[in-house]
């Protein structure tokens, strides 16, 4: 499951070889290095894409400090004065604080639920032979390739009839249910790779199956749980379709939904700078967390596709 080499040999490397790259080869007599042209070309292309990725993000940050007239008048000019009031306005008046709180509650609840229920099901499916094992496994896996929107039409009424529409706990249950396919798929494969001898020894010593699972197997499965946890955290934090359909109460909106509604309502309110502040506010925590936990995030997100 090696997905990246250890990150950032960058500072040391660039410090050591910077002169080599910037200046032409010091000894002209030396034969032209193989791949030199390709090297210039590949750097050029890679730098262009890096700029294309970063520019929209930096532009958003810059815009969030400008006033409305200069946002529309000159989109690329730097702000004359830094309008920090955009941020405070977004946080209080535009309800960003509520959206954050709702998102934290929903994602916190569903992440824990997904990991607990997902690992329970995956453990049983990976380690025990019983009639229907394969059927249940494929039932879970099938959920990964089905278009969710098809189920959402009746689901809306299922949830409504249970009195769970527009509630935080209702949304948590739905998030868990729709996160289970990938979680079960990933963790089943992971539990299969763990040695059986430890669990057997614990069982011989008189531990029950349940105790063996919680005290022996779960701690052993920690790396897998972290990967799949990051995957689910990002997926649930960024979720847009499920809350759009199942969470129509303005007070219960999560971040993504709230921002989109905010953008729609700006048509008549006209507080675009506040909206940009809200957008950046929503972007920064995930980007920050990603930069700090870069290796784990990449591993968590690509692990599934490499299996």
């Amino acid at each position, binding site marked *: 499951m*090696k*997905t*990246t080499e250890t990150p*950032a*040999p960058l500072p040391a490397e*660039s410090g050591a070889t910077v002169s080599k790259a910037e200046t032409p080869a010091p000894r002209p007599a030396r034969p032209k*290095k193989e*791949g*030199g042209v390709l*090297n210039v*070309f*590949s*750097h050029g*292309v*890679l730098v262009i894409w890096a700029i*294309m*990725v970063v520019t*929209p993000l930096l532009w958003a940050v810059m815009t969030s400090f400008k006033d409305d007239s200069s946002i*529309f008048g*000159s989109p*690329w000019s730097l702000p004359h004065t830094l309008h920090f009031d955009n941020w405070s306005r977004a946080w209080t008046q535009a309800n960003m604080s509520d959206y954050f709180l709702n998102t934290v509650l929903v994602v916190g609840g569903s992440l824990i639920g997904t990991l607990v*229920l997902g690992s*329970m*099901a995956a453990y*049983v499916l990976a380690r025990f032979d019983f009639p229907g094992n394969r059927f*249940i496994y494929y*039932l879970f896996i099938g959920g*990964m*390739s*089905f*278009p969710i*929107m*098809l*189920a*959402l*039409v*009746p689901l809306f009424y*299922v949830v409504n009839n249970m009195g769970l529409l527009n509630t935080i706990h209702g949304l948590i249950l739905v998030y868990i*249910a729709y996160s289970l396919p990938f979680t*079960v798929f990933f963790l089943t494969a992971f539990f299969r790779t763990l040695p059986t001898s430890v669990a057997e020894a614990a069982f011989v010593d008189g531990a*029950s*199956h349940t105790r063996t699972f919680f005290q022996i197997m779960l701690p052993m499965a920690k790396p897998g749980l972290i990967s799949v946890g990051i995957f689910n955290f990002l997926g649930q934090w*960024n979720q*847009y379709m499920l809350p759009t359909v199942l969470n129509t109460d303005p007070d219960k909106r999560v*971040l993504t939904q709230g921002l*989109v509604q905010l*953008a729609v309502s700006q048509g008549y309110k006209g507080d675009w700078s506040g909206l940009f502040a809200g*957008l950046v506010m*929503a*972007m920064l925590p*995930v*980007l920050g*967390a*990603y930069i700090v936990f*870069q290796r784990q995030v*990449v591993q968590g*997100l*690509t692990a599934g*596709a*490499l299996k």
Partner: protein
Amino acid sequence: MQHGKYRFIVGFLVLPLGLYALFVVWPFIQSIYYSFTDWTGLSPDFKMVGFDNYKRMLDDDVFWKSLQHSLLFALVLPLVTISLALFFAFMINVGGRRRRGGPVISGVRGSSFYKIVYFFPQVLSIAIVSLLFAFAYNPDSGAINSVLRGIGLDHVQPLWLGDPSLALWCVMAVLVWSTVGFFVVLFSAGMASIPAELYEAALLDGASRFSTFFRITLPLLWDTVQSGWVYMGILALGAESFAVVQIMTTGPGGPDYSTTVMVLYVYQKAFRDGQAAYATTIGVALLVVTLAFAAIVMRLGRRERLEF
């Protein structure tokens, strides 16, 4: 390990399976059933109407447009995204200058920097990305047309999302922008596990870097490319395309139905027009398209697995 085994199995499965059955499996089954009824979603009364919804769907111009656009998404998006990602990943991992005494094949300097930056969009919500680009595309005050004016192209001021012939491509470009990084990182990991001796041997035999890509890298990476293709296609037919089209386009789905996709049409029919039964019919069509897409990619991509 027989003692109490079945009690334990049932105990551990009942909650996850129950939740999954209630919120995922059951609604799917209901959907297919509802597609044969005239259920509005607004009242609990409905009756069976046989294949009426399916007949209506075949005569529905908007449905055909949405199908066409969804198919375009499923074909073009993976093709463009994966080609770009393969190209970047190859540049990052193999495009490096050969250093004296170093390995024959090396990555460019700062390869981990590129991988970190390229991955940025992947951690952001597609909803936020869509909002951001909706502003950039604004014809009067958006960032893109402002750049065009800045470099003297005052007469080239496309309407972007407002132009029926451009809007769909604008939407697709956003999805490419946001997903390329994921595949760069994915393919980089795959390329890093290809043994360097293979490249050394090929280069000794006089192969160009261009041909090493097609003869060595791509065949050895094929499994990853294929599963990436299916993954991207399912996203392009489902959740991702819903978010971008619903948030960015006018209507949504416009102008003049030029960007509507199946998943959006299902949503609009069910939750805007009160035609839940007809919505599930389109949903069933979307299901068929998705499964057919996955089956075709798996079938066409089937090759002998190369061990290395």
